[in-house]
């Protein structure tokens, strides 16, 4: 069950209703795909360990928010304590893509004084024939906001691992560089329990400044 991890990151998953947030998370944490899924009420919780480097594990605590408008005031409250986020839209639903702006604006207001590392996720990429959003325009939008873009499918398990682990790696790099720091009273990043051996080797790595020759 509980293995030892270096850090715990709290990630939030947002996006319009029915874009497939819960299904994506369930695929990632439980490895299965539910054909029928009830709308999320308020917020749900999942967790999983991710190994970003051999022996270096990060515990992801994933907050799955309700996309429904009526729960919006609840989900807003969760931005503040998240270090990373997956912003989902449905590639077969143009409207969900157009709302990405609004989602980003909203998080910007509510995340203060912290920051969230977002990745833009075009979901349901298995339904390519019904596509309403091209990869190109999604990439353009993501770049405009300084986000990465990735297309995923929970049903066919495409890029699901990658979406989460890439984001985790990016955050980990920021933490390592000190651009994101652990703060009292903030749940975004928590320090885990590291075997002494890893501790010392980490310090060695830090002091050597990672020779890339």
């Amino acid at each position, binding site marked *: 069950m*509980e293995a030892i991890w270096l850090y715990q990151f709290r990630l939030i998953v947002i996006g319009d209703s029915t874009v497939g947030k819960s299904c994506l998370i369930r695929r990632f944490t439980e490895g299965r795909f539910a054909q029928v899924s009830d709308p999320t009420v308020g917020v749900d919780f999942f967790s999983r360990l991710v190994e970003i480097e051999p022996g270096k594990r990060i515990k992801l605590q994933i907050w799955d928010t309700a996309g429904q408008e009526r729960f919006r005031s609840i989900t807003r409250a969760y931005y503040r304590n998240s270090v990373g986020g997956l912003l989902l839209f449905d590639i077969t639903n143009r409207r969900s893509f157009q709302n990405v702006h609004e989602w980003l604006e909203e998080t910007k207001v509510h995340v203060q004084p912290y920051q969230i590392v977002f990745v833009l996720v075009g979901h349901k990429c298995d339904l390519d024939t019904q596509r309403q959003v091209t990869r190109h325009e999604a990439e353009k939008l993501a770049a405009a906001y300084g986000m990465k873009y990735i297309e995923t499918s929970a049903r066919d398990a495409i890029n699901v691992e990658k979406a989460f682990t890439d984001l985790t790696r990016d955050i980990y790099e920021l933490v390592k560089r000190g651009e994101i720091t652990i703060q009292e009273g903030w749940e975004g990043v928590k320090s885990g329990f590291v075997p002494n051996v890893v501790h010392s080797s980490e310090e060695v790595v830090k002091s050597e400044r990672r020779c890339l020759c």
Partner: protein
Amino acid sequence: MESLYYFFCLYANLKPQSLNNFYQKSLYKEFSFAFILPGDVLIMSDKDDSEIPVITEATSVLEGANCEPPENSESVDQSTETENKSEPIVSTRKRPESKPASDIETAEVFPVQESESKDVPQTGWGYWGSWGKSLLSSASATVATVGQGISNVIEKAETSLGIPSPSEMSPEAKYAAGETNAKDNENSFPMAGPFGVFSTISTAVQSTGKTVITGGLDALEFIGKKTMDVIAEGDPGFKRTKRLMNRNSTLSQVLREAKEKEELWTYNEVTMETDKKTHYGLLFDEFQGLSHLEALEMLSRESEIKVKSILSSLSGEELQTLKLELEQLKEAFSLAEFCDEEEEEKKGDEDFTKEITELFSQLHVSSKPEKLTRRAGGCCFLSPLVQARNTAHEWIITSLTKPLAEEEEGGKQLEAGTPEQLNKNSVEDIHAFAIRSLAELTACSIELFHKTAALVLHSQKQEVTAIERSRTLSQMTVALCNELSSLSKEFTTCLTTAGVKEKADVLNPLITAVFLEASNSASYIQDAFQLLLPVLEISLIENKTGSLRQELQVQTPLSEH
């Protein structure tokens, strides 16, 4: 053994920090002492063998021991430290009795108790039969005490928990000095019988009745702070507690920290995978209980702020009417009497499922109530609860029938190594499964409350009044706690059946642990229930004003499609 002891210490030290309901939390403290003392007993048990005390004597033992000063105790170093820690809380347990308790009285009780309880762990577990219920009722008894009136409670908290009398100031200082020494020994304490738990629980039970919460959380918080400060002053071991208290922690924070410490310790100390499986805190988190609690706290806090701001914006008759209605709502939030044990046992498997499903549908928060009974899928938040509970029960039934059948055949097959043994669950297995089930059921219950809060706050139409909902929720809380109680009883029956040939010092801690965690579970659920009050208050106000919803949702909405 050692690991379990440490586990309890962790809980004991960390849990009372919750401000919301100090009295419930005080139970933990008490438990910790109960485990430690028998430990001392075991150390000394080669000295002599004395009479086996009867449960009902527990109280009298406590009361009749005033004459012996603690210095006379044979294990000053070890026991004094634990006395220091537990003594104030033990007094609070005595509060339900009419006789006023003084610090000295209780502080000096334990040496006597030690010698008297020596042989208890060796006896059977028959007397635990009614314990599960009393355990839960004692939790409510602590709340009931508050109902006596806030000033009364504060006064009592002061006399019983508090201000050390001059006569005991000096020994206390002495113990504090010896604390370092005692701490070193702490980890080597073995654990044993539950005598201490027993005595204190049985006194608490006497006062169990209907619980009426007239004081608010504020009052409890106040008392909690005050008491903890006093304890912290008298006891260096509480430094950590005090530090946390000052940070104004919420229950989920406290639990999270406890869990994190547990994780750390688990990593450092525990090598056996099996040991990890019995850590309630870790399991509770694994089932997302902590997260749901945190989310529920957020909703509760937000609602509380809204209620306060609304109240401050009203005046005159309008304010009075609303205050009156909120008062009624608060009353509905008191817990109904816990069911009689016999009644409880008559209930079949389906009854809990039926009851909880019915109660939930009475809340009228879900648009699709028919989905609630569907067990597969797991999308609905009631089905995990029902599933967890049914799995536990099925497990118990198979676990119970197996060894019973074996015993009928031979009776001697319980010895290790026989082929039959292989099919059977060991006491450790049962214990692990029991703790896991309790953690899961509790996490699911908290989830249920969290989701209910979200739905109450954001359901479109309100078909039932907030007061009706409160009553239903109160019934749900009772049903859940009763279920935990009966589950823990069934698990301990399994343990006694399976461990009939086990040594008492192996079996007893396991049984105690199951009851302890059942008690913890029940108080988490009750705490979570209390967190719903502000949510229901907002719901009541919104229902009254109708238009308030638009007022409150000031942020610009995002369109859904």
